[in-house]
């Protein structure tokens, strides 16, 4: 284990399906104005497997999970 988990959502790719929010509601939120997903502080305490599942299932591959290896 080294460093913190980094979760990023590319706002240019995200289309706001909300699938990530359903999978990990503490880690993501859909921003009302832009309609795209934004990582939340809760991502730091969300299981890595759940974040990776959200990234795998994101239809536009907008989510990347890194760090904490």
């Amino acid at each position, binding site marked *: 284990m080294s460093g913190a988990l980094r979760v990023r959502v590319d706002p*240019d*790719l*995200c*289309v*706001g*399906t*909300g699938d990530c*929010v*359903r999978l990990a509601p503490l880690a993501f939120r*859909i921003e009302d104005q*832009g*309609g*795209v997903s934004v990582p939340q502080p809760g991502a730091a305490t969300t299981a890595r497997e759940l974040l990776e*599942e959200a990234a*795998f*299932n994101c*239809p*536009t*591959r907008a989510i990347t999970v890194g760090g904490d290896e």
Partner: protein
Amino acid sequence: MSETGLLTTYTSTVSFDRYEDIRVALFDPNLSRTFDKRSYHDGNIREGIVSIAHGVAHRARRRVENTQFRAEVLRLYERELFPKVMNALLDRLITSDHVDLYPIGEMLSVVLAARRAGIDHDGSVAQLRALVRLVDAFSQGSAILDAKDPDAVRVLVRDAYAEFERDYVRPAWNRRAALIAAQERGEAPEEDLPQDILTVLLRHRGDAILELSDDGRVVREVATYLQGGTHTSGQTLVNSFDLMFAEPDPEGLIARVASDTLFAQRVVQETLRLRPTTPKAKRRAEADTEVAGRRIPKDALVVLDFTSGNRDRGVFGPSADAFDPDRQIPANVPRWGLSFGAGAHQCPGRSVGGGFPIPSTFEVDEDHVFGLVALEVQAVARRGVRPDPDRTPERDQRTERFTRWANYPVRFVQTALR
């Protein structure tokens, strides 16, 4: 390319039939749903709609339209709006012991699809039938690459758009435009605006990136959501019973569906896997690319065989061809396989019809969404549906798509399950 700039031939055809390869292809940004102009652009039968759009305009359109598919909206549909509408409508549609299940499925589904699309109607069976007739035309348009007579489909769809705009979209448009204007003047709260696709399109069409300045494009976009929300659900309802009727103990399966909503949802998701509404998806290579080690030249036709991919034994096990709603599948594989696509063009309404993913434990929490088709299948099962021994169902002969029905006669027996 021809002299008129129309792409009339493909450089080659590349087909994929393995689950993982198809999934990779669906995520490849070089493989586009924008086909030759002859198939999609002449006569504007699909021009500019979200499922054909590509790149920045597609993503921008999806961002505003996806607001209508959020979990809280789906729960509102499933728990408050749909059950009442569904049972009242079934009482009106099942008027004898012998009925055609296919139009029942279509009419059940078109009620909520119209609401989500932003189309107002009086709730009468006559108007629902009119909407279903229009949906049928739009469905033929969406499958024009598989149509046996594409020219006839173009004429049919153009006429359907004209009727749809005149009788449904314009009245709904005028009502919503007035409400939006009142809200913008500060005379009405935002919460009073309808929650539907037409409203969000009208509110955002000033944003040039959405490419919605053409009124016809708004009409076609609304038609797309009406059709998409009706057709797959209606066909899947029929296919669910067709698959159960073919099993050794259909009455046992129907009794389980009637008493267990999560089992009903597994039946629906297994049906979607075996009977994808789009059996083979097609893409055009906009640039040279490579998928699963195979080189695809620019302007190649890429055929993605969802039917085969959904029966990939390496993913769904040795019994992949069988109907087994209780099957276990690997993590990160949807029970419906590839039937709603994947990648940027994945069907936005997949959770409306098919519900949320089902955990391998078959245990769900109170926030779970079962999907409207599961509720429809359960409601029909509770009314004691059985095959009609005297009449044979007929498939839709106008298309090569084997999952489409023209009619499906059934009978209803007395049951204590309702």
